[in-house]
Structure formats: C-alpha cells, structure tokens
C-alpha cells in the first residue's frame, strides 16, 4: 500500500459532520487547497491510523451540485475529480432527529457503488426529543452498517472505525432499487424511516421557543443588531489587555537587542525592520481572535442562519441574498476568510459580487490606521452624549457598509449582471456551541494570520526598510535622510498623482509598502517621518508628529482613502485563486482605487473650501 485508503465523510449540512470528522481525526488535520479550485481539502488520519485518510467533503443535500463546493463532493465521490483518487469507502453522517430527510441522501449515495458506513449522529439530541430508532433494522433495510454516534462526546467512534475498516472489502452491489428520481427516493426513505422509528419524538421545543423571540418581527432585528453591536464592543474591549501585552513584549525584545548589539545595520534591521514592521501587524491578533470567536459561536449555535434570514430582504434590495451576509460579516475581521466563505453561495454572479464588495467591509487591518489618525486629528469631545472620536470611527465603518451595498447594486446591474439566486436555507436546531469546533476554528484562523505576518508582511517590511536606507543622502544634505532614498524618490513621483487629494510625498511613499497590507502604512509613516525607537514611541510620536505635519483636510482625505483602497496583496491573491484568473482581482483593484481616489478628492476639496 503506497498511498493511504481514502474515506470520504459526507452528509447533509447541519448533521454534525464536521464535529464527527474532528472527533475522528483530532487536531492533526491537514488543510490545503485543491490546485486552481476554490475548495479546501481537509484531511486527517482515522483515529491515528496512518493507512486510512479521512477527507471532509463539503456538506450537500444531493449529488446534484448547486455550488462550487458541492461540485467537489460530487466529483470526488463519483471518481471524476482531477486530482483526488476515488474513495475506498463513504462515511455518511445522518442526523438521528431528522431521519427521513437524511436517509434520502444515503439512498442516493448507494447508487455510487461504493462501500458505505452510516454514522447515526446526534443520538443525544434524539434521546432528549424521545426519538427511538431500531438501528439494527435500519442496517438491514439499508444493507450497510449503521453505528450510533455522539460526535461532541466522542461516543461510538471505536465501533465506527472498525466498521469503516471492515467495509473496504464488503460487497457493494446489493441490487436494491430505490428509483432514480428524487421523488421516488423521498418515498423510499420515508418508508424506511417509518419502519425503523419506534417512537416519533416530541420535536425540538427550545428551538421553537427561541425562534419565537429571535425571529420575532420586532425583537428579531433588535436582537440581531444588539448582538452585532456587542460583538464590535468585545473586539475593542476584550482585545485591549492582550494587545498591551504584545506591545510591551515587542518593546522589551527591541530593548534586549539594543543592549546586546551596538548601533549599526544589524540592530536597525532587527528593531526597525523586523520588529517594528511585523509587530505592528501581530498586535492585531487579539482583535482578530475575538471577532472570529464571536462569529464561530454564532455559527456553532445555529444563529447565523437566522441572521441570514433576517438580512435576506435587505440583501435582496441590492440583488444579493441573505447567505451573502455571513461572508460579509467575516470580512469585518479580514476579507480573506470572507472571500473564501463566499463559496457557499450557489449562484456564480452572486458569489462574484460578494467577493468584489468584501474588501469594503472595514477589516481589522484598518483599525491601526483609523486609530492613529483619529487620535491625531479628532478632538476627544462629546457630542450629544457620544464621544466624537467613537462617532468618527463608527461613521467610517458605516461608510464602508453603505459603499458595499451601493457597489453591489451597481455591479449586479452591470458587470455581474444575471438572474440573482433565490434564498432557501435550512434553519438548524439551536445547539450549545461546540468548544472543539470553536477552538479548532480559532486555531486555524490565528495560524493563517500569523503565517501572513511571517511571510508577506515580513518580506515587505524588510524591503521597505532597505528602500528607506539606500541610496544614502549626499554629504551636507539639508532634508531628512529618507527623502534621498528610493522611498523618497518614489514618493516624489506619486506625489504628483496624489496632490489633488491632499497627500504629501511622505504619505505617497508610505502607501507603497502599504500596498502589501494596510496596517504597514502606519509603520511606514513612522519610518518615513524618521522616527525611531519602540513601537509604542512610534505610535505616540506619530500622533503628535502627524498633528503638526498634516492639515485636517489631508487627514480626512487619508481616512477616506482607507475606507476604499484595496491595499492588501493577500486579498487580491485570494481573489485571483477564488475567481480563477487575473480578470476579477484586477477589476477589484481598479474599481476600489477609483472609488478611493474619487471619494478622497471630494472630501479633500470640500474640506479645504470649508475650513
């Protein structure tokens, strides 16, 4: 045996498939992307056995693909996938509390002529709803092994593993014909479900009760917007302490280097190049973790589908549907996971539109920019009981949202024109959040973020550092050293373009490395304004420095620029991967730069005329 046997884990959405996959593989999963495709390939060894590899295929209601990720499930199972080998067996996860519906999918899978093992999951929920099922009769009727499992409590995993291993050599052709239309399979599934169900159960009472509040015509929207408000509160307040710790840690590290090394190129490289640059990004890890924690909790409980339901009408007014709300919400942390989450949108044009507007949601990387500029230019006064600085921050977020909605409406009428998809979504039963799901999700997101900081952002800060040092200033120079460097030269060229929106050569120069990632622009401004020292000193120093160096119209124009400008190479790279070419990332870059320039021009010229 050269390559391990592949076992495909499949099931309808909301059957606890991912929880079972996590329980069977542990944290040592491999997440990769199929070359050129938009779907993550998530695999792991079955209960530590190296010879058997489980693959978590996207959840689907049928083998008729309705979205790009469902197409992968179909291709892998039918052996038509470009790179994936045909699985040796299928592990189909069914929800014991919704048997007839999930059995229909099992019957459809049987036509594939692969060994199947059924995991009857959520047996704890079934017991609570007083549903009782004759599992051995079900196994006889289906002609495949059926194992009762409770993924979240790791029950039934050993038996399931044994059944999967022994299924490899089991005969598959059982000659039971359930018919070839979905209507016939529905009938057959209901017949079997009725036979094996010993007691019908009482339904999920708490879901009914919760929905009567959470989907209430008045309370529903109030609760949704309060939750979103609390979530953003949490991002700022919970993350404050750990951010301080990271900040101090970076400062301490810079202090150690300063003591160990003498002043020179190496010290400057370590402190100003690496620590200042990467540190200015890593400091946002706590905020990203808090935001994803909230999103994962909302997903895990089943509330996210309700949010999509409540938002559908608003999304429909710009030609999208409620499902687009979930990727857009993730984009408040970072556009990259948001763009990837758009995979669940079935309609290609809707998916493209969602991807194109995702960068307009204010991501965590804009926070350092907003924070520094607001601190420097907006007085800490109160207006009608609200802090003025907070109000400005809020309006920047709001401007992003409104711009995204307007952009979607225009895109759907022009470049991504086409019939828009309808909205059909299962509202799953409410569940207590699964800690394993939440923490493995967080672990993955944090890892991706740190990887980005360690690669693209590290590289760009090193390049920037070098470009600010060379060429060296001539003897007897009367301007700061940086003005004679490559950064200064490039900034001088760009200043011609940016002068109408109020940007001086220092800002223009800082925008160049800021292309790699928005937050780098702040570190770059620090470097360009010839500040040195710890990260803390740069921030404090920058605030007062900018206050005296920029006019208010310039500051407002700079804030406006950051609402729109697509300054993130990772976003453009992920857009290229998800849309399969350079066309859409280039379009995204073009339209966002045009918006940024146009809006900044209006803000700068208006503010200059008024003030």
């Amino acid at each position: 045996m050269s390559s391990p046997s592949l076992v495909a884990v499949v099931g309808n959405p909301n059957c606890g498939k991912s929880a079972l996959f996590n329980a069977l593989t542990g944290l040592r999963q491999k997440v990769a992307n199929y070359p050129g495709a938009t779907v993550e390939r998530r695999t792991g060894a079955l209960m530590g056995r190296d010879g058997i590899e489980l693959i978590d295929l996207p959840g689907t209601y049928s083998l008729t693909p309705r979205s790009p990720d469902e197409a992968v499930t179909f291709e892998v199972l039918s052996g038509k996938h470009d790179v994936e080998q045909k699985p040796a067996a299928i592990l189909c996860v069914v929800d014991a509390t919704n048997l007839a519906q999930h059995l229909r999918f099992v019957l459809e899978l049987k036509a594939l002529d692969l060994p199947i093992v059924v995991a009857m999951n959520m047996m704890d929920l079934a017991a609570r709803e007083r549903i009782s099922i004759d599992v051995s009769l079900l196994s006889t009727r289906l002609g495949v092994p059926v194992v009762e499992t409770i993924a979240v409590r790791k029950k039934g995993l050993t038996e399931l593993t044994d059944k999967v291993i022994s299924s490899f050599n089991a005969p598959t052709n059982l000659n039971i014909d359930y018919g070839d239309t979905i209507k016939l399979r529905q009938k057959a599934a209901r017949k079997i479900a009725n036979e094996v169900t010993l007691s019908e159960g009482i339904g999920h009472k708490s879901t009914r009760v919760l929905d009567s509040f959470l989907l209430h015509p008045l309370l529903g929207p109030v609760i949704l917007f309060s939750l979103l408000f609390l979530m953003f509160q949490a991002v700022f307040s919970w993350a404050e302490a750990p951010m301080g710790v990271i900040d101090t840690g970076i400062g301490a590290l810079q202090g150690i280097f300063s003591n160990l090394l003498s002043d020179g190129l190496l010290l400057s490289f370590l402190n100003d190049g690496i620590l200042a640059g990467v540190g200015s990004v890593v400091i946002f890890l706590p905020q990203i973790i808090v935001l994803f924690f909230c999103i994962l909790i909302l997903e895990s409980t089943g509330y996210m589908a309700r949010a999509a339901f409540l938002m559908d009408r608003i999304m429909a007014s710009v030609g999208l549907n409620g499902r687009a709300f979930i990727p857009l919400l993730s984009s408040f942390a970072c556009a990259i996971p948001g763009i990837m989450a758009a995979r669940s949108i079935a309609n290609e044009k809707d998916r493209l539109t969602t991807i194109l507007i995702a960068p307009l949601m204010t991501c965590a990387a804009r926070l350092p920019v907003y924070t520094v500029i607001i601190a420097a230019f907006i007085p800490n006064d109160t207006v009608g009981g609200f802090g003025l600085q907070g109000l400005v921050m809020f309006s920047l977020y709001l401007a992003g949202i409104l711009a995204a909605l307007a952009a979607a409406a225009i895109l759907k009428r022009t470049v991504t024109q086409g019939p828009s998809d309808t909205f059909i979504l299962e509202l799953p039963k409410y569940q207590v959040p699964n800690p394993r799901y939440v923490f493995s999700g967080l672990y993955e997101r944090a890892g991706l973020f740190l990887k980005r900081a360690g690669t693209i952002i590290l590289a760009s800060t090193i390049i920037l550092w070098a470009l600010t040092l060379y060429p060296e200033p001539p003897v007897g120079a009367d301007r700061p050293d940086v003005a004679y460097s490559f950064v200064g030269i490039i900034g001088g060229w760009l200043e011609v373009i940016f002068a109408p929106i109020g940007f001086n050569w220092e800002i223009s120069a800082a925008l160049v490395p800021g292309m790699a990632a928005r937050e780098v622009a702040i570190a770059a401004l620090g470097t360009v304004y010839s500040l040195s020292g710890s990260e803390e000193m740069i921030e404090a120093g920058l605030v007062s420095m900018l206050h005296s160096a920029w006019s208010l119209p310039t500051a407002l124009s700079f804030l406006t620029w950051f609402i729109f400008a697509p300054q993130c190479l990772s976003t453009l790279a992920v857009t290229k991967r998800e849309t399969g070419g350079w066309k859409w990332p280039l379009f995204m870059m073009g339209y966002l730069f045009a918006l940024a320039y146009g809006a900044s021009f209006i803000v700068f010229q208006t503010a200059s005329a008024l003030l």
Partner: protein
Amino acid sequence: MNAISSTAVSLDTLSPGACGTIAALGGTANNDMVDRLREIGFAEGLDVEFLHQSPFGKDPIAVRVGDMTVALRRAEATLIKVNIV
C-alpha cells in the same frame, strides 16, 4: 394523499400560525427549483407549519416541514401547495 383537494392553497398565501399538509409540489414549470425544494426536505404528505416572516416586507418566510425548519422566499413558496387543516 397526493391529490390536490379543492382546498389546496399556495404556501406563499398563508400567514404565521397556519398549518397544513403538503398536497403537491410544482407548478407550471421550474422543475429544477422543485428538485431543490425536495432536496432540502419538502415532500408530499409532510406536515407544514407557517412559523415566521421577515420583519422587512414579510419576505422571506420560515416554515416547519416535517422535523426541520426551512427559510425560503415567497416566490418559491408558490410551488408548494398545501391542504389546510
């Protein structure tokens, strides 16, 4: 059970609180949409209950069908014919 009785109405015409049994799925055309409705769990003979409607414009709606809750827009709900009980 599958016959459309004279009392069968489209699901989209109902209001919250209404209960019934699905009499038929389909309409003049749009078979692919009927398949999608079947995939997510709509089938003849299943109990259906109109639970909620969107606070904004009363569309989409949320219904209980069998053991699950499904949200859909009224445009698609026209394909679901219900015998009211």
